[in-house]
């Protein structure tokens, strides 16, 4: 029996690292850091402390997973946070199969990223600050996945948001980082408005549903009307779309690479963006009970292709990866939409490892080449073998090549969509297949441009070119030192690459292996999760017995290999596409490069012009020349009336005399007239 304390420790250890790095380290005398001195500064302690804290969290998470494997879902007591008679907001821990998987993924990937950060961030002025934010980020995400109350979930949800804000804006002196951080927080906050309203509505219908277990039971017992479930699910979906960067709330994520690359690795793999998918999975019974599952499917399917299309032409390697994240999250979303809970969670699981690997490898590329712009890279494969092979493996996995992990999870999603009976499921399948082709193409385009061919000068050359064109080069362009990165960086990359190979097949094999049963992962997250899936039918529907479909697998593999082949052809042979055709695609390429003009639409048209320059200006004017003016006029009239009346008492005896006499005469006249 995993004790409650264990679970709290999983969250509190990184939280402690946050407090220690952010607050206590400042007052720690240099000497106390002695045993940890590697280069003689106490700030080194921050990195290793975070690594150790998250590492222990990972070990505890793994123990928790084993507990859930043997004992099933566990709910721990709710503790009162605010209690007024009638209003009782409680927090507690919920440890079900989904939580257990997420705990391991989050703490595991975070551990490797922290280790990587020790080397990657070495020498940065904000080294301590970096690790305190990273620890906060990890703690928030761990808190999110263990939440038993909806409010508690929302608390950590927002904390994840703010830590990503701090990390994206980590390099405070870069204006672009500030803009990206604000954009990320604001867009997700806008989406959270829906989440918040859904919580308020849920509370107003039945406050006890704030406890997720109670909500599950209410749905099973038929105590929740479908319309109620639909409204709540709609709000939750909006929140999830914001966090998971689903169309049309996707545009913050590509910009979010302004932070250190290790931050992107964490944001894009295990934390932050997976929170949205997690949210839908967490409230899966609610969504199944609602009328809006089709919407989940459509949003996911459209996003899968929409985001992939922008990755086709991106020049920045991190941007390619960012779009690919959005696209893969789309797969998970539509998997949930067609009911394939098991497949969605499985893809979330495998994706976390190979995507973290890709980002860390990209950081390693920057370490050597000094830039992320692929037009200035190339030929790096001879200089950094580990990074190269890790990148190739992770890309193959992402492209869905058998037998790497991405193949198994992606095909499970596609197979479920193929077996769906609705037109929307077919639409999702088509989009999924199209996305598979695009994914293979853009990943190998990126690999080839980065690692093959001739080296094109790196960050130094890019800086010169930008300066030559008379513009100010962005920060982050560094000098080239071709060579492999230090071990703290390559070891995590290698481990993640290894996991990208094995973690799909060996956790969820299609036939019994000695140490893993057939469909072990799917069985675990679906069949054993009896609070969510009550009967066998529901379990099968949600994917407890994945239908490995050779036909779908064959088609998607052909598409993936085709995508790789096209990428190879376009990169190595000139003139594959006739110039006239090439020319015809230019407007389309441009549309993709400009990201379908969504930034212009949101930032320029709606926010800047429509809201700020027009609407808010109008309200501001109204405040000054409307409401405040009323006050000022009121004052003026009072003042004038006062001045006018003051003449009555101006102290001039002659005036008093005249007024008295005239008044007397008038009075007499009136008296006489009235008396008559």
């Amino acid at each position, binding site marked *: 029996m995993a004790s409650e304390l264990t679970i709290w420790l999983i969250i509190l250890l990184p939280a402690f690292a946050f407090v220690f790095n952010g607050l206590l380290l400042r007052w720690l005398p240099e000497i106390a850091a002695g045993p940890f001195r590697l280069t003689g500064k106490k700030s080194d302690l921050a990195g290793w402390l975070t690594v150790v804290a998250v590492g222990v969290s990972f070990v505890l998470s793994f123990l928790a997973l084993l507990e859930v494997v043997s004992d099933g879902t566990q709910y721990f007591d709710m503790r*009162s*946070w*605010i*209690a*007024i*008679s*009638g*209003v009782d*907001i409680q927090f507690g821990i919920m440890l079900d199969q989904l939580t257990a998987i997420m705990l391991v993924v989050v703490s595991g990937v975070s551990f490797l990223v922290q280790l990587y950060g020790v080397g990657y961030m070495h020498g940065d002025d904000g080294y301590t600050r970096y690790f305190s934010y990273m620890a906060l980020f990890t703690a928030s995400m761990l808190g999110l996945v263990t939440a038993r109350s909806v*409010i508690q979930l*929302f*608390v*950590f949800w*927002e*904390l994840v948001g*703010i830590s990503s*804000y701090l990390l994206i*804006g980590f390099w*405070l*002196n*870069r*204006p672009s*980082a*500030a*803009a990206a*951080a*604000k954009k990320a*927080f*604001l867009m997700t*906050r*806008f989406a*959270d*408005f829906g989440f*918040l*309203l859904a*919580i*308020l*509505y849920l*509370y*107003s219908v039945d*406050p006890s549903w704030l406890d997720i277990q109670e909500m599950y039971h209410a749905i099973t017992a038929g105590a929740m009307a479908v319309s109620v479930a639909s409204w709540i699910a709609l709000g939750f979906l909006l929140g999830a779309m914001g966090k998971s960067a689903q169309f049309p709330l996707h545009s913050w994520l590509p910009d979010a690479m302004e932070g250190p690359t290790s931050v992107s690795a964490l944001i894009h793999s295990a934390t932050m963006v997976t929170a949205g998918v997690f949210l839908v999975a967490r409230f899966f019974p609610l969504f199944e009970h609602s009328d809006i599952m089709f919407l989940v499917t459509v949003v996911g399917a459209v996003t899968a292709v929409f985001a992939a299309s922008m990755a086709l032409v991106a020049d920045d390697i991190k941007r390619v990866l960012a779009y690919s994240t959005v696209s893969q999250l789309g797969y998970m979303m539509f998997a949930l939409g067609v009911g394939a809970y098991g497949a969605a969670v499985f893809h979330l699981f495998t994706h976390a490892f190979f995507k973290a690997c890709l980002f860390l490898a990209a950081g390693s590329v920057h370490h050597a080449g000094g830039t992320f712009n692929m037009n200035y890279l190339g030929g790096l494969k001879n200089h950094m073998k580990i990074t190269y092979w890790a990148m190739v493996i992770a890309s193959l996995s992402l492209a869905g090549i058998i037998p790497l992990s991405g193949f198994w999870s992606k095909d499970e999603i596609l197979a479920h969509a193929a077996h769906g009976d609705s037109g929307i499921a077919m639409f999702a399948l088509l989009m999924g297949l199209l996305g598979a082709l695009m994914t293979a193409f853009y990943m190998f385009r990126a690999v080839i441009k980065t690692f093959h061919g001739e080296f094109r000068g790196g960050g130094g050359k890019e800086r010169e070119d930008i300066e030559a064109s008379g513009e100010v080069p962005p920060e982050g362009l560094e000098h080239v030192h071709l060579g492999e990165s230090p071990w703290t960086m390559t070891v995590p990359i290698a481990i993640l690459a290894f996991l990208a190979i094995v973690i799909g097949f060996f956790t969820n094999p299609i036939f019994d292996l000695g140490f893993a049963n057939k469909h072990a992962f799917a069985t675990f997250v679906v069949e054993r999760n009896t609070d969510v899936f009550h009967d066998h039918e529901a379990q099968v529907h949600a994917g407890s017995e994945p239908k490995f479909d050779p036909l779908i697998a064959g088609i998607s593999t052909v598409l993936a290999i085709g995508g790789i082949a096209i990428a190879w052809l376009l990169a190595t042979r000139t003139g594959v596409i006739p110039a006239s055709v090439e020319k015809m695609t230019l407007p389309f390429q441009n549309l993709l490069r400009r990201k379908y003009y969504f930034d212009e639409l949101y930032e320029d048209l709606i926010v800047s012009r429509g809201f*700020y320059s027009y*609407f*808010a*200006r109008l*309200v*501001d004017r109204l*405040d000054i020349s409307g*409401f*405040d003016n009323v*006050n000022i006029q009121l*004052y003026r009239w009072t003042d004038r009336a006062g001045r006018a009346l003051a003449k009555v008492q101006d102290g001039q005896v002659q005036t008093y005399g005249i007024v008295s006499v005239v008044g007397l005469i008038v009075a007499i006249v009136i008296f006489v007239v009235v008396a008559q």
Partner: protein
Amino acid sequence: MSEFNGILTVTVFLPALAALVILLAKPFNLEDRIIRWFAILSTVATFVLSLIIFLAYDRDAGGVQFIDHISWLSAETIKSSYLLGVDGLSAPLVLLTGLLGMAAAFASRNIELRVSEYFIWLLLLEAAVMGVFVSLDLLLFFVFFEFEVIPMYMLISIWGTGRPRYSAMKFVLFTLGGGAFMFVGIFAVYLTGAVDTLTMVDVPKLGITGIPEQISGVSLIAPASLIFAFFLVAFAVKLPVWPLHNWLPDAHTDAPTAVSVMLAGVLLKMAGYGMIRINIGFFQETNGFTVHDAAGILSVIAAVSVVYGAIVTIRQTDMKRLIAYSSVSHMGFVLLGLTAIGGSTAANQLGGINGAALQMFTHGTITGLAFLMVGLAYDRTHTRHIPHLGGLWRRMPIIGIFFFIAGFASLGLPALSGFVSEIMVFLNSFPVWPWAASVSAFGVVLAAGYVLWMIQRTFFGSRPAEGGIPNDKYEELTDAEPLDLIPILVLTIPIFVIGIWPKVVVDVFKIGIEGILR
């Protein structure tokens, strides 16, 4: 029957006594330094007393405690007395006043102009506000409520910046205008035949039945709705509620830092307190009209205050003015929480009013901190014009950290106190007024917008924008001094404590509010 514990009298009059000492010491031409530290120490002593009151308040017994009672008018028709006491509603607000009084005194360390007079007025201000929160006699309450105007006028008009006289006079006219309405309201209560006391609550220990009990079910001298409106206007001006808010941005912008801290921190809370104590406390069972009837329209006004305030905030270019308008928005949440009184369940009523009370407390510390940080930055940059700033983090990271904390708390970040009060207000007002609550909840999105945008334009970046602070001046900017950390931490610690463990304050508030709701 009579009772006199003395601790409240001491707490209220200690700052006033200190002010008197400074006044009497004037002929001796003491060094400014001595006067400063004397004033600061007296606010520390007041804070300690307020903390003792808060901690020693017996939560199991509840009701009014620490009574100081001297009868001064005991006619057949009406009884009025010097009656001080705290209940669950006022105890946290007394603590808040002690906290902010101390922070304001520390933040005034660098005042050079007419030092002794400055501190005399500042101490009198604290005494007046403290008096408002502990007076249980309506007349006494009114005296303290109005007295606060005088020190505020002096502080803004003499030590202010920009257009201090204009702003100070505007403040006076608005407050006194509102006060006139309250005075009429008090008279209406006084002249009502069934009422023979001016005590605002029941004090069983003294054998006093308070006004709420006495006016329930009887015919008042004027329609209850009219008397309610008179009190409401007085407090709505002070809170402030749209469209009576225009004095606030001017007063805040031109006031010295410490006065802005006091204004945002505790002066506005007198209004919310008055609304709970009087508008809700008195008018629950009145004849012909009760507070429940007004809740609907007030919820609309609250929603307008929140969103209107937030939209205007986004347009501001002066940092202090920006925070001032954000106060209009945030005090809208207070009003929204109070309108949960129109709900059908006791849970929503209690929850909403508790949320409002907590929002007053949290806004006091959060906005106090924000003004303090802007003040510190302004002392160095000599400009608050946002387009002239930028890159401040690089020169003043400590000011930056706490400015971020204030900003994040203001936009309702969980684990900081603003979130707790806002979620309580939303959860309990939504079932009652779903549309008003939904619209108000959007204020949280707008808050993220103005806070983050301001942070981006002032603290992010590598240097101030073109036309802003010149480069050589920028490189000379310094960070906060160690002593500045005292007021900063005084305000920051409650933000975290309440954000993580709100029961510290909520458990006390709820006792008072349960007592007021009958």
